[in-house]
């Protein structure tokens, strides 16, 4: 008899738990109302949940400036408290995914532009921020950055960073080997050949992460096509990805690989390994975006001799074709406000405050180039920063990284294809065809 009772008991429990799960799946708002009542329960102070991905250990300066901004905000707004959670990059992305399935996104958090953001916008998870931009931030952003965080002309994210990529190079190695800064692709290949003959690795590349290799491909495509931004057009389906320039870019890329321009085994190296080869003077060149500037200017962990020896040049033309003031880059992370936030107004207020303060402090205190306008003359900056900021002012075009522009699943295909193209396992034609088919299937 007891046995029967136990069985009944466990069956009931089982069904109850099933019901719990089912309810949770149907409307995740349950949890939200709970937290809202507890918020209002603690007096009139409202709590804004904020998640970011700059942990203290690895991004000390970022972390500190964020904390300063939060303190200032709380001092100005005594009725609002910021509840902070910090995660590392990968963990942050995973957690945001889990949270969004349960409608539990933080009130304010970080997002990436375009392709990453789109599913969240389509799923009604991010709040439109046009009102914030118009009232507080009009004309603050560098042209083009806000667009990357917009869907159908509505802004859903406030960009915090703006990066463009250059080829950084080691002046000392160049001098020792008697080579000059290349201005065309042929010259770059010649430099690589000379360096190889002298036993120096020409270019450090960590293509395990594939977005690194993608930047090489993107620049080649940009230079070959000239004024026309073929990549963006192909992704927007205005033209086919099998455009001659996009195929030729693959050919030129494989020419670089065949000339031995890149470090051995690049497809198995992480970007970090490649970076360390460059910073320890084992490779002469390294293509990376400006988020790396602190490593070449102010970062005390990097040897002074190296920082003195490093300089940059814009990506060369493909034998005359292309414009050296056109860049591959784009805004990095931006702030979103959750659509279902119970404290949406407060969250927007915080996001707006954060972007403004970040714009003031980012360059000087952190070494990050913000997406808001900066006047280099007014700041005391290392020369390299001033140069980059001036380049940005003169930039004719910035092509957003392919893996950010496209949807996450197309981005995955792109990155896989980049590895194969570099590895010589597919032809440039196959590369273009796969992209065309993937993009076409998404329409």
């Amino acid at each position, binding site marked *: 008899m007891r046995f029967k009772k136990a069985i009944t008991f466990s069956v009931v429990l089982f069904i109850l*738990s099933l019901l*719990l*799960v089912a*309810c*949770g*799946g149907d409307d*995740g708002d*349950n*949890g939200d109302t*709970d937290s809202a009542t507890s918020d209002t329960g603690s007096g009139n102070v409202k709590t804004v949940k904020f998640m970011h*991905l*700059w*942990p*203290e*250990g*690895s*991004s000390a300066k*970022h972390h500190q400036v964020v904390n300063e901004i939060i303190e200032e905000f709380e001092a100005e707004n005594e009725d609002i408290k910021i509840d902070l*959670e910090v*995660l*590392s*990059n*990968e*963990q942050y992305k*995973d*957690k945001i995914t*889990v*949270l969004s*399935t*349960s409608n*539990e996104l933080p009130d304010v958090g970080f997002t990436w532009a375009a392709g990453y953001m789109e599913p969240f916008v389509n799923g009604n998870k991010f709040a439109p921020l046009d009102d914030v931009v118009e009232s507080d931030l009009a004309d603050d952003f560098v042209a083009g950055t806000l667009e990357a965080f917009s869907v159908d002309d509505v802004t859903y994210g406030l960009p915090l960073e703006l990066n463009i990529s250059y080829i950084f190079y080691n002046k000392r190695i160049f001098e020792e080997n008697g080579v000059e800064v290349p201005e065309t692709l042929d010259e770059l290949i010649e430099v690589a050949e000379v360096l190889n003959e002298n036993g120096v690795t020409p270019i450090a590349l960590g293509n395990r992460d594939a977005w690194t290799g993608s930047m090489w491909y993107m620049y080649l495509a940009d230079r070959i096509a000239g004024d026309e931004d073929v990549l963006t057009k192909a992704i927007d389906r205005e033209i086919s990805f099998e455009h001659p320039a996009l195929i030729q870019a693959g050919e030129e890329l494989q020419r670089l690989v065949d000339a031995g321009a890149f470090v051995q085994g690049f497809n198995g190296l992480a970007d*970090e*390994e490649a*970076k*360390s*080869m460059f*910073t*320890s003077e*084992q490779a002469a060149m390294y293509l990376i975006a400006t*988020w*790396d500037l602190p*490593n070449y200017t102010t970062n005390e*962990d*990097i*040897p002074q001799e190296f920082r003195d020896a490093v300089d940059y040049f814009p990506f060369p033309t493909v034998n005359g074709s292309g414009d050296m003031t056109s860049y591959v880059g784009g805004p*990095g*992370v931006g702030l979103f406000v959750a659509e279902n936030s119970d404290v949406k107004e407060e969250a927007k207020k915080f996001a707006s405050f954060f972007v403004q303060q970040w714009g003031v402090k980012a360059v000087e205190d952190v070494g990050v180039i913000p997406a808001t306008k900066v006047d280099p003359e007014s700041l005391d900056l290392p020369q390299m920063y001033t140069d980059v900021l001036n380049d940005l002012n003169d930039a004719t075009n910035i092509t957003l990284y392919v893996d950010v522009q496209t949807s996450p699943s197309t981005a995955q295909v792109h990155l896989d294809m980049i590895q194969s193209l570099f590895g010589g396992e597919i032809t440039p034609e196959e590369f273009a065809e796969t992209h065309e088919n993937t993009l076409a299937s998404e329409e």
Partner: protein
Amino acid sequence: MRKFGYFLLYVCLGAVAVFQIFPVLWLFLFSLKTNQEIFAGNPFALPLDPKWENYVKVFEGGIDTYFWNSIWITVVATVLTVLIASMATFAITRMKWKFSSLVLGIIMVGLMIPIHSALIPLYNMFLNVNLIDNPLSIVITYVTYNLPITVMILYGFYTTIPREIEEAAIIDGSSVHRLFFRIILPISAPIMSTTVIINMIYNWNEFVFVNTFISSDKYKTLTVGIQNFIGQYMTDWGAIGATLVISVLPIIVAFFFFSNKIMEGITASAVKG
């Protein structure tokens, strides 16, 4: 000839031992290096200028809270897992009932779930019972997800316990509880110590669940301390090495302790058996 054979055997064993101890030494050297030395230098090289400040950084990162959380969560989860698994294995292998193989089957299915499949449903459940950001959710998850493997390991062992032992006990008038706690558990001490070690290692090194279910700093565990040094564009590997060294020490101590328990268990069972 025979002596030479033994000599050769010892040479091999010694070589393997060097190979196995090397990772820990390497990890220690790693923790004293800069990123440059780690990625671009000779991996066998000693750090030029040992960066003890890597350890300072780790302690400044507020590792002590994480440390205690790791310890208590590991201990509680491990004790519960081994106890519940022992009880279940006992019921499955030593008691007589119809559904024992069915239940064993369900438990085995538990071995097969990839954790990333479970993450979102689990989060939803804990959310509904208000256990998100509560260390209880972590303990329950650890216990549950380690149960299948613990039961399986115990199962292989329990099936080899001679029937006579329990027959003797029951005929002497012992209750089932007494049989389990006083006879079966002590006999299985060696294999239990083994499962304790395995559980400890798993719980100690886990981070996917902690990162997903816990958001307050005060409940996070040591593995989060590692995440602290992984940046958006840069990662401080030396500091990660230091965190790994600090976090592996307690587990080595516990390991040696329970490793000796395996021996003690044998003497105990030799007396009883």
